[in-house]
């Protein structure tokens, strides 16, 4: 199986300073891949180069087997984009908008099916400008998937969503991935979003990839030292250890079957992430 995205040594320079400084990425077909990083890390630049919106200054890029800079227009049949902050088509209805964008593709999904998929069937006749922020973003997703893309770019898709809308959006993303095997490249700075959705994640900071892995093992957090805390003689106690199971069993021997207030924690994704981006500053 070929990779949907393959990047080697990608560089982009703005005003003499590298914004992207030697990035390597491999995204497998069917994967949900998250690109995580603080503002100014080079996320948007990297993604816009992959989307074919920007030219690179160095390195090799292959997206769906083609160089985005030289790909023919038909390359875009396989690409779906969900833009950040789009407010276009405001005076068109949801159905008109989705139907319009279906016309650009040789084999679009049925319009009603896509509107149903993004949960806007009841709003199909409403003008896009009357929708809430979350509903508006679902229209963007509908436009992004109408052409049956093999690769979908989701650029900070849930910024400004309320918690319920985020959950619904996550469910929609999982559906797209599971039903059609769509490869998804997600950029975000929400760590819970990464844990909820991504098969793999890369942390970008200062124009470089600091770590790549699954959300569970990123930066070695699955094997990192754990903190064990408990209550003994009415006092909170804790210790840091590479072997938490041993500590717990020793505590059990000393304190009896049920250890009061027992808690074993590994570094959270957030701890790991902050560590990783801190190391570049």
């Amino acid at each position, binding site marked *: 199986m070929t990779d949907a995205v393959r990047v080697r040594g990608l560089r982009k320079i703005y005003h003499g300073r590298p914004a992207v400084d030697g990035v390597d990425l491999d995204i497998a077909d069917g994967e949900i891949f998250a690109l995580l990083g603080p503002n100014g890390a080079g996320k948007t630049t990297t993604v816009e180069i992959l989307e074919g919106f920007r030219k690179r200054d160095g390195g090799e890029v292959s997206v769906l087997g083609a160089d985005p800079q030289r790909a023919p227009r038909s390359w875009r049949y396989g690409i779906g984009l969900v833009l950040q902050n789009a407010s*276009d088509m405001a005076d*068109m209805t949801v159905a008109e908008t989705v139907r319009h964008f279906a*016309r650009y593709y040789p084999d679009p999904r049925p319009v009603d099916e896509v509107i149903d998929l993004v949960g806007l069937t009841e709003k199909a006749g409403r003008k896009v400008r009357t929708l809430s922020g979350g509903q508006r973003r679902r229209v963007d997703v509908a436009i992004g998937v109408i052409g049956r893309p093999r690769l979908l770019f989701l650029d900070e898709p849930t910024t400004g969503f309320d918690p319920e809308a985020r959950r619904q959006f996550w469910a929609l993303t999982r559906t797209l991935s599971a039903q059609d095997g769509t490869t998804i490249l997600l950029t975000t700075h929400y760590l819970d979003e990464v844990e909820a959705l991504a098969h793999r994640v890369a942390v970008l900071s200062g124009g470089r990839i600091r770590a790549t892995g699954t959300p569970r093992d990123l930066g070695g957090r699955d094997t990192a030292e754990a903190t064990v805390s408990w209550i003994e003689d009415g006092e909170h106690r804790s210790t840091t250890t590479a072997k938490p199971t041993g500590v717990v069993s020793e505590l059990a021997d000393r304190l009896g079957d049920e250890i009061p207030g027992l808690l074993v924690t590994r570094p959270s994704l957030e701890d790991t992430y902050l560590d990783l981006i801190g190391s570049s500053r």
Partner: protein
Amino acid sequence: MTVSPVGLSAARAGVELRQFFRERTAMIFTFALPVVLLTLLGSIFDKQVAVAGIPSSQLLAAGMIAGGIGSTCFVNLATSIVSDREDGTLKRLRGVPMPPIAYFIGKIVLVLVTAVAEVILVLAVGATFFDLPLPDDPRRWLTFGWVFLLGVTGCALLGAAMSSVPRSVRGAAPIVNLPFLVLQFVSGIFIVPITNLPEPLQQIGALFPLKWMAQGFRSVFLPDAAAATEPAGTWEHGRIAVVLAVWCLGGLILCLTTFRWQGRKDG
């Protein structure tokens, strides 16, 4: 199913027209401004006689057709492209498999439809309130045809070029409207006959296409005796054609060199 560029262009035109006619306030402003000015100024100039038997209000009505074309083609097109750049339309279209020409054909259809509607509106007001005569000589309609086409083309190309100047939609209205207002003034759209304007202003106006469009439309709708009110004393059809054609070419070059698909903050 295959995707044809013709079909996509038609689809773009449909979106452009629907969006324009559904955005009521902008639509009313675009269409009504020339008509309101014609009605108000016409009530003043109705009492003045430009040349034997021809009230100045008829000069005004014919010239206001040029003002209407400027309003729909220059002002409206420029602001609509600025808004397309700001609201993500252009970015989205670059990200879908659309030949760029489809976008421009959509805009051309928008400009043609709105310009024709505006001309009909101005003519209706001119004929109803100021007895502007509608010619039955086909040669005059031929003149109308080429002045209209060259005028629309030139204004639209300049409007597209102008769209690269404002940084945001908010800034677009004053940046596009103010120069257009001044241009209408020095082109003798508001003050008729144009020879009532101070000489230096007339000369500035003569550098731009609007004055020549207005002169062309006056030659279509007014008796030939009215040519005496023009600075040259004749209709100067040849010069009108040359100036408008040069502006079309200049507008095209400006467009090709300055048009941006992306906003400044993206670039």
